[in-house]
C-alpha cells in the first residue's frame, strides 16, 4: 500500500498543516532579528505620507532611497539589489527616524531633516548639485541655473535639471526648491502638483496659485 504512505507523506505531519502561517511568522521573527543585528545591507519599509504610501530604504550609513507611491516596490528593490547589495530585508524599525521626521515635516513642525543620508546612489556631478540643493533653506528656492553655477557645472542648467530629476531621496533632499528662472515651477520627478504642494507647505508659494 505504498500509495497510501505516499499520500500521507505529502500531507506532512500535523504540525506542517499550518505551514503557511507558521512559516510567515518564523520569517517575521527572522527579519526582525536580521534588522536588529545589522546583518542586512539594506532595510526597507513603507512610510505613510499625505501623498500616499512612500517606500524608503536605509543602509548602515543612512537613508538611501525614498520613492513616491507610483514607483513599484519590486522595481525599487530590484534596482537597490543591483546597485547596492541583494542583502535587502523588510525592516520597519530601521525607518522609524524617517517616519518621525517626515510626520513632523508634513505637519509643518519641522524645517530641516536631521537623519543621516547615504549618497551611494548619486554620482559625482549629481552629488555637487544635490548638496547645493540640500543647502537651500526651508521656504527658499533657487533656479536651475543658480544651482548649476553653485555646483560649478560646466554643463549648465539642463544637466543640473537631469541630476535633480534623478534625485533618489526627494522631499528630504529638497529638489522641489529648484525652480525655473522667473519663478515657473519647472519639472518634478514626483509630479508638479506635489512640487507645488510642498512649496506651499513651506510658504515659498502662495496657496492655490
Amino acid at each position: 500500500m505504498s500509495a497510501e504512505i505516499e499520500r500521507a507523506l505529502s500531507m506532512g505531519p500535523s504540525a506542517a498543516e499550518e505551514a503557511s502561517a507558521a512559516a510567515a511568522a518564523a520569517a517575521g521573527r527572522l527579519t526582525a532579528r536580521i534588522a536588529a543585528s545589522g546583518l542586512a545591507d539594506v532595510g526597507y519599509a513603507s512610510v505613510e505620507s499625505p501623498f500616499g504610501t512612500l517606500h524608503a530604504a536605509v543602509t548602515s550609513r543612512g537613508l538611501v532611497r525614498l520613492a513616491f507611491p507610483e514607483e513599484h516596490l519590486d522595481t525599487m528593490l530590484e534596482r537597490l539589489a543591483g546597485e547596492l547589495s541583494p542583502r535587502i530585508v523588510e525592516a520597519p524599525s530601521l525607518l522609524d527616524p524617517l517616519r518621525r521626521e517626515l510626520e513632523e515635516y508634513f505637519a509643518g513642525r519641522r524645517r530641516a531633516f536631521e537623519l543621516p543620508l547615504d549618497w551611494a546612489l548619486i554620482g559625482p556631478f549629481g552629488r555637487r548639485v544635490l548638496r547645493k540643493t540640500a543647502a537651500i533653506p526651508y521656504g527658499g528656492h533657487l533656479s536651475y541655473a543658480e544651482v548649476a553655477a553653485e555646483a560649478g557645472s560646466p554643463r549648465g542648467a539642463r544637466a543640473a535639471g537631469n541630476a535633480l530629476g534623478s534625485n533618489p531621496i526627494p522631499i528630504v533632499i529638497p529638489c522641489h526648491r529648484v525652480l525655473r528662472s522667473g519663478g515657473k515651477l519647472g519639472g518634478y520627478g514626483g509630479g508638479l502638483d506635489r512640487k507645488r504642494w510642498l512649496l506651499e507647505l513651506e510658504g515659498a508659494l502662495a496657496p492655490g496659485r
Partner: protein
Amino acid sequence: MSGGLPPFQRFLDGNREVVWRFLVSSVGRNEAEDCFQETFIAALRAYPRLRSDSNLRAWVLTIAHRKALDAHRGRARRALPVADPSSVPDPVEPAPAARDDELWEAVHALPARQRSAVVLRYLADLPHREIAVAIGCSEAAARRSLHEGLANLRKVVPA
C-alpha cells in the same frame, strides 16, 4: 556586483514555506524554528556571493538539509544516557496528532539521506534533479535514496 539576484526579502518570501515544511518534517516542530532561523541567517551571509543563475530553492534546501543533520546529531547526543536524567532537557518531543505518529517517527528514524530525499520529494514536491542538488549527490543516487527510504517506511508502517 551581484547581477540579477532577487532582493533577499523576495527570496525569503518565495522559499520560507518550503523550508519550513522541510524542517518540520525532518526535525519536528520544536526544533524547526531554530533550524529555520539558522538556515536563512547562513543563506543571508552567503547570498551576495551566489551566482544569479543558481537554483535558489535547491540551494537553500541544501543549507536546511545540513541544519537538520546538525539538529539530529544534537538530539542523538542529548539522548545518551546520563547519570542524572533530570539535569538535561527532555529530548522527547510532545506527541503529534495520532494519525501520523507512526509514519513520522519512522521518517525521523530513516538514515539522513533517505529522510531528506523522502521529505524533499513529498513535502517540498521537488524534482529528482533538485533533490540531488539539495543533498549533494547524483540524480541517480537521489532516486535510489528515495526508493530505499520508501521501502524502509513500508517495512515499518503497515499500511
